[in-house]
């Protein structure tokens, strides 16, 4: 099923091993925030109804202002949720047998794609920090590559330790293949 993904610049013989989004809890938090924002006008409406201020909706000025601002508010939070979902869904890390590709959507007009070859990976570190990440088993993964000062960082990755072990296993397999090829070349 992983092969169905649109892998950017697929290398010959490259196979997708794992596709990672941020933990689903992050999406849940965003959905919860959307729900909380969505019920605020309903709360105001109920307060106005309980105190008998509902006649204000028939006012010449306040009525239209309330209707237009409520409509604008709901359009805004709906777009905000759509944007937050896009941000969650488009932030992807693809682990293949050849490389690690990190795709990050930052705002409406910024998109970063970075990739590291498995042969360049020197060190992989996972970090699960805090109560909620510990309970729900997600965290950050730092990948140090040769010849690069900056680390390749994946945030809020589910099962960070398992992913770290997976990357190490792929790197080791990659290195053993290179060693075998070198031996064959020498022979």
């Amino acid at each position, binding site marked *: 099923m992983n092969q*169905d*993904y*649109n892998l950017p610049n697929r290398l010959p013989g490259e196979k997708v091993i794992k596709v990672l989004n941020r933990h689903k809890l992050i999406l849940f938090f965003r959905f919860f925030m959307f729900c909380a924002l969505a019920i605020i006008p309903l709360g105001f409406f109920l307060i106005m109804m309980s105190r008998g201020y509902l006649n204000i909706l028939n006012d*010449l*000025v306040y009525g239209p202002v309330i209707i237009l601002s409520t409509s604008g508010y*709901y359009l805004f939070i709906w777009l905000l949720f759509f*944007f937050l979902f896009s941000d969650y869904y*488009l932030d992807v890390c693809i682990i293949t047998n050849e490389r690690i590709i990190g795709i990050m*959507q930052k705002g409406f*007009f910024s998109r970063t794609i970075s990739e590291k070859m498995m042969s360049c990976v020197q060190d992989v570190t996972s970090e699960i920090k805090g109560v909620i990440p510990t309970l729900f088993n997600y965290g950050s993964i730092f990948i140090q590559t040769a010849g690069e000062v900056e680390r390749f960082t994946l945030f809020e990755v589910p099962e960070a330790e398992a992913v770290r072990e997976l990357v190490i296993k792929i790197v080791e397999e990659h290195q053993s293949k290179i060693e075998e090829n070198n031996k064959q070349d020498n022979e």
Partner: protein
Amino acid sequence: MVISLSLLLYIYYAFVAVWLIFSLICAYHLLRFSINNFVGFFTTFIFIAVSILIIFVSNNYINQIDWSLNFSLPGGSFFNF
């Protein structure tokens, strides 16, 4: 200072126009860069459906208002030099 009620409607339309531009950009990103096409299309469909619902309900209320009326701002005499 007397202001036409329709001014509020024009401000709302301007907001909707800006909202529409950002919506299109967001939908474009999701459809263009989505790694699984079905999720991109499905989410965009849900977004458009709910947006149409919000605009339809809003329009029902907006049509009930007489936008040709005028109102005066409180303390309007301050602006009448």
